[in-house]
């Protein structure tokens, strides 16, 4: 074997030495004492078998079989949607008291401001449903389904800028390079439908705002077949999937079979896991050639469904159309369906911009939840709506009677969930009267992720992958399941 290929090998010299020397040593030692017990018992024992205790089986019975994550990229203003703070209206234009901010950092965008005028929401709030959740006039459709929702008003993060924050909530780390939530689940739980990827990504077309990178749904250090597969609107939902003109399906199949033989030979020689990932991806692509056009073709959906999701849902690539697709993917048992909708980053011109954003998303989000419900799917599907952080209670730039902006705010924001395993008509956590700090039941990004995995039957401390000499988890060394949210 050529020396250049050593880095590709599945079993390296280092692995060999570790396994034999340490293995023999450990064998002798463990016959004398149980060293694992001495360091905390079961947990460590499980950590010693990275991921291998899963292999498609959950740690405990799952409440949720699949997740639809509606990521509102750019950070929607919780103060204008769900976190009602009348005090801000009363003190509109007055200075943010130092005692509230308590010297906490603000972003470079407002750090230079001479004044931090409090900005009350210009939108009216009402308590809705039996649960009495506060919802602003911007969300008239979501307002009708609050009794299905589980609000978390006390989310907080450490990141203060978009890229680290969205990377954090998607991968558990502010630094790029870790696997996305969907990849972890694909790796840990496998797929429930062999004809579709277990992790599908849908991005609203023609939106601008904070950039989205493919690494947000990337597999990080996990085998590549676990990366999210983006389905696009238009003729080629998955790029390069269709056969070129003149290549019929039969020829494609034969070609793939020969290719597989070659790859298998290479694999037998090198045992590089990336080769098996490649084989799996070719096979998946072949199956996608029939399954993807089927799922993307929504022409058979009845009119009343289009009306439910809103007229936008007839236009491929819109958020509404993606919500409809998300339901279709959920029906086909795709495990993790990740939507992105950009444009929530309202540093200025908030009153107008947020109105547009809500118009695009409010009805489809609510329709998706209720459509899942009437089909009995909400029982084992978890829907999540939320951004990467919150927005400030003071105005960025000048506060006028009709216009203002809000800067990034990491200390608190609101998300909501619905469906499998979470309480409905429920609101958890609270912020202070100024909407600046969390005063009750804070939920950190890692807690949210731990809870998400828990709902899918996964113990976040036991889904691990060894990389560069240490074991990683989605929540790394943090995170507590927020049991109060669970049914």
């Amino acid at each position, binding site marked *: 074997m050529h020396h250049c290929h050593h880095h590709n090998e599945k079993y390296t010299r280092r692995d060999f030495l570790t396994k034999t020397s340490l293995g023999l040593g450990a064998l002798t030692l463990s016959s004398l004492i149980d060293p694992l017990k001495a360091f905390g018992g079961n947990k460590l024992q499980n950590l010693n078998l990275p991921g291998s205790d*899963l292999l498609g*089986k959950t740690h*405990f*019975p799952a409440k949720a079989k699949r997740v639809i994550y509606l990521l509102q990229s750019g950070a929607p203003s919780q103060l204008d949607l769900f976190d009602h703070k009348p005090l801000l209206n009363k003190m509109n234009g007055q200075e943010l008291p130092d005692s509230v901010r308590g010297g906490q950092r603000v972003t470079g965008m407002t750090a230079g401001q001479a004044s931090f005028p409090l900005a009350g929401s210009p939108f009216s709030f009402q308590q809705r449903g039996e649960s009495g959740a506060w919802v602003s006039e911007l969300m008239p459709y979501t307002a009708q389904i609050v009794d299905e929702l589980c609000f978390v008003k006390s989310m907080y993060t450490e990141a203060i800028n978009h890229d680290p924050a969205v990377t954090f909530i998607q991968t558990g780390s502010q630094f790029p390079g870790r696997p996305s939530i969907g990849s972890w689940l694909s790796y840990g739980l496998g797929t429930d439908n062999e004809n579709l990827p277990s992790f599908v990504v849908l991005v609203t077309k023609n939106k601008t705002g904070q950039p989205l990178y493919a690494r947000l749904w990337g597999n990080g250090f996990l085998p590549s077949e676990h990366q999210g597969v983006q389905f696009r609107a238009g003729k080629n939902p998955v790029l390069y999937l269709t056969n070129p003109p003149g290549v019929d399906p039969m020829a494609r199949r034969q070609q793939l079979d020969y290719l597989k033989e070659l790859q298998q030979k290479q694999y037998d020689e090198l045992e590089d896991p990336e080769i098996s990932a490649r084989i799996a991806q070719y096979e998946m692509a072949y199956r996608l050639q029939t399954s993807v056009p089927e799922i993307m073709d929504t022409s058979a959906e009845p009119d009343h469904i289009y009306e*439910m999701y809103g007229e936008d849902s007839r236009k491929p690539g819109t958020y509404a159309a993606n919500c409809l697709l998300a339901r279709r993917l959920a029906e086909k048992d795709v495990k993790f369906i990740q939507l992105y909708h950009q444009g929530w980053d309202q540093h200025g011109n908030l009153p107008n911009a947020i109105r547009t954003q809500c118009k695009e998303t409010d009805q489809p989000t609510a329709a998706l939840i209720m459509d899942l*419900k*009437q089909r*009995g799917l909400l*029982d084992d599907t978890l829907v999540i709506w939320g951004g990467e952080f919150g927005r400030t209670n003071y105005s960025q730039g000048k506060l006028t009677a009709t216009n203002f902006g809000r800067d990034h705010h990491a200390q608190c924001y609101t998300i909501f969930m619905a469906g499998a395993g979470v309480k409905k008509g429920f609101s958890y956590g609270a912020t202070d009267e100024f909407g600046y700090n969390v005063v009750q039941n804070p939920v950190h990004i890692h807690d949210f992720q731990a809870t998400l995995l828990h709902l899918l039957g996964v113990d976040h401390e036991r889904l691990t992958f060894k990389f560069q000499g240490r074991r990683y988890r989605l929540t790394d060394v943090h995170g507590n399941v927020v049991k109060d949210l669970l049914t």
Partner: protein
Amino acid sequence: MNIEIFLGRFHPLIVHLPIGFVLLAFLMMLWAKRSKSTSFHQAISFSLLLGAASALGSVILGWLLASDGGYDDSTLFWHRWLGIGVALLTIFAWLVNAGKIKASQRVLPATLWVSVILIGLTGHFGGVLTHGSTYLVQYAPGFIQKMLSENATANEDISLPSQPDSIAVYQHLIAPIINNKCVACHNESKKKGGLILTSQEDILNGGEQGEVVMAGDPYESGLFQRVVLPQTSKKFMPPKGEPLTYSEIKLLEWWISGGASFDEKLLDKPLPKEIETLLLKDFHVSVTVKPYYERVAVEPASAESIDKLTAVGFSTKPLSADNNFLQVELTADSPTFQQIEALLEVSEQITWLNLGGKGITDAMLPVIGKLPNLTKLSIEQNEITDEGVQELRKLAHLQYLNLYGTKISDKALESIKEINSLNSLYVWQTDVSQEAIEALNEDRPNLTIDSGFQFENVN
């Protein structure tokens, strides 16, 4: 105040010095006697001097530590005075050995014998004070335990049961709080304020100022009032040591306002949300009822039966790594009766079954009716009628039934009404009428029936 406790806490450390020194002197004395040697004289003298000095130090530190309070009175009494006795005896022994007190030759050995015995007793009482009286023999062999238990008074078991339905509110939640925080001063021997809090009778009797528990009104009950006063108040309880935690205060408040019953069980009355939350947080007690498939266990399905199911187009998966119940889904379309019949291979194990939109007919439903542990059944979007649904009446644990997009009508609800365990039913896009749904809901208020959703007009 604090410096006293700080110093006092060195007592358990320092106390080992006199034990060692006196024991050494004692052993040297024995050896000297046996070997008739006189060369030990100075060494014994030195040991006793150090022993006396460190014993005196231990006594002082011990006194400071005891001022912190919270110790069992009678044990503390014995430990304290025996300790002082040892210190005095050691000083006496040193004086005798050094010839500062003239005494007969027998006095020194006798003094040392007594000292060593007293050190043993003092040490034991000290151990009881720090570790509790059961510490020493907790893991003793059975016969020793038996010997002891015949004398010991029967202690009521106050460890928290794992199942919420066996938790008694007073015994498992309230009594431990009182025992930890109040009983040190309010017991039969100490009776501060004339109040004893060790038994139901004594609690109800109250103290010098009358009753301390007004059932139903925590804010008029001394037991509650005193623990929520400002901590600077003279009347704040407990005056020394850790105040009650937030959870403890809340539990006490809830117990008194609920009638301060001494024999009520946790689940006898509906729990307030707040109590539910703090039980979960601080006691790891979850009062939510576990689903059927987590309460019951079955044998794992055999590999052959799983293979058979796979061969006819089912995918099967255990609910989890340590739960043998199966989630089963049909992947093949338009199955035959024989295919469906294969489910009986694992009839005990199937608890979630998904046959939605696969071409299931009424004729196949008798097979489904024979799956005793089914909790979740999805047979939506199939040609199923009221007649087929009759076969499901025997499913005693069914909780979820999805019939949307089937041919059922109002008559099906009559069969469904008999499934008492059911809590979610889906009948969207069927001929079931709104009146029939309302009628069923009246009978079964806990059954959620979904018949589709429409937004209200928002304009």
